């Protein structure tokens, strides 16, 4: 198989296991496991309510939700406009359109390897920055 092509549905019908019952049993097992974990978390670690919102009392160490923490931390190191432009105006469009350039970068011997390495580093950096923000580093 050439790496340029990615076979579509019809060619798969010869191989593989039938959805029912083989695969379906596994899906039910995963659903049961996830439901179990969620109910475990919700009952043993219920969400706290805390105090009602008070615009006049700023609590100590306010942070955005965890999935914004890496962006929040970047803004401490780079000028705000650049950090925000990168996070919300430049990065999202790149994330959306990069598959359309696959045939271009796949022509290079290490094109995909380089891309995957860069993204792996990016993911590591994002997790690292979020951890710094969570721990309250300036």
């Amino acid at each position: 198989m050439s790496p340029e092509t990615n076979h579509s549905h019809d060619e798969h019908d010869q191989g593989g296991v039938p959805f029912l019952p083989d695969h379906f049993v596994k899906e039910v097992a995963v659903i049961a496991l996830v439901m179990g974990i969620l109910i475990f978390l919700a009952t043993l670690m219920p969400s706290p309510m805390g105090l009602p919102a008070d615009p006049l009392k700023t609590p100590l160490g306010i942070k955005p939700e965890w999935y914004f923490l890496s962006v929040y931390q970047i803004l401490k190191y780079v000028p705000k406009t650049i950090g925000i432009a990168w996070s919300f105006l430049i990065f999202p469009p790149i994330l959306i359109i990069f598959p359309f350039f696959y045939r271009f970068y796949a022509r290079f011997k290490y094109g995909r390897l380089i891309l995957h390495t860069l993204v792996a580093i990016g993911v590591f950096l994002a997790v690292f920055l979020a951890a710094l923000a969570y721990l309250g580093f300036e």
Partner: protein
Amino acid sequence: MSLGVVDFLDERLDVRRISREFAEHKVPDHVNWLYCFGGITFLCFLIQAATGVLLAFYYRPGTDTAYTSVLHIMDDMPYGVVIRSLHAWTANIMIIMVIVHMLRVFFHGAYRPPRELNWVTGVLLFFMTVTFGFSGYLLPMNQLSYWATKVGTEIAGAMPFVGGYLQDFLLAGSKIGDATLTRFYTIHVIILPIVLSMFLAAHFYMIRKQGIADPL
């Protein structure tokens, strides 16, 4: 008798062919446990829909009513604490699952042609999921949600060119108030569920149409 019902439906809706296709379609041999994160995300979405509807029965948006209505759900409603906590935990787990699913798809190269458009719908679904989380976080109107939203909308307001408009749109005024709560609530329970469901349908349709990608 029961066969009569099946025959009735089969003549009109072709249910036998549809259920046979559902039951017998082949799952490729290379599919392993790494492929379950997209499905778990969908499971989370269904849990969010169910618990969200229950919360919406008693939640009242508004600076005077939001906090007390959530307390009412937690203190007086049967299993109120569990339902609210399930909604909050599942929200976080759902975002983690979306990210892990995206990374799996990326490192397996499953975005390659002809599946670019499914990657596009997937990224948009990711942004919608995060917006779901952001809009839902304000609703209990406690200290945590108020100040996290303040930080969040200030970051949005600092965006070049569109920041000012975006912040005005989100806050529906100059600061977080009644209008902000109704706006976030509308986004959270009307706009996002509809738009996300439509993209989800497209996402699933493309998986069935294009099949599961071959490994690299």
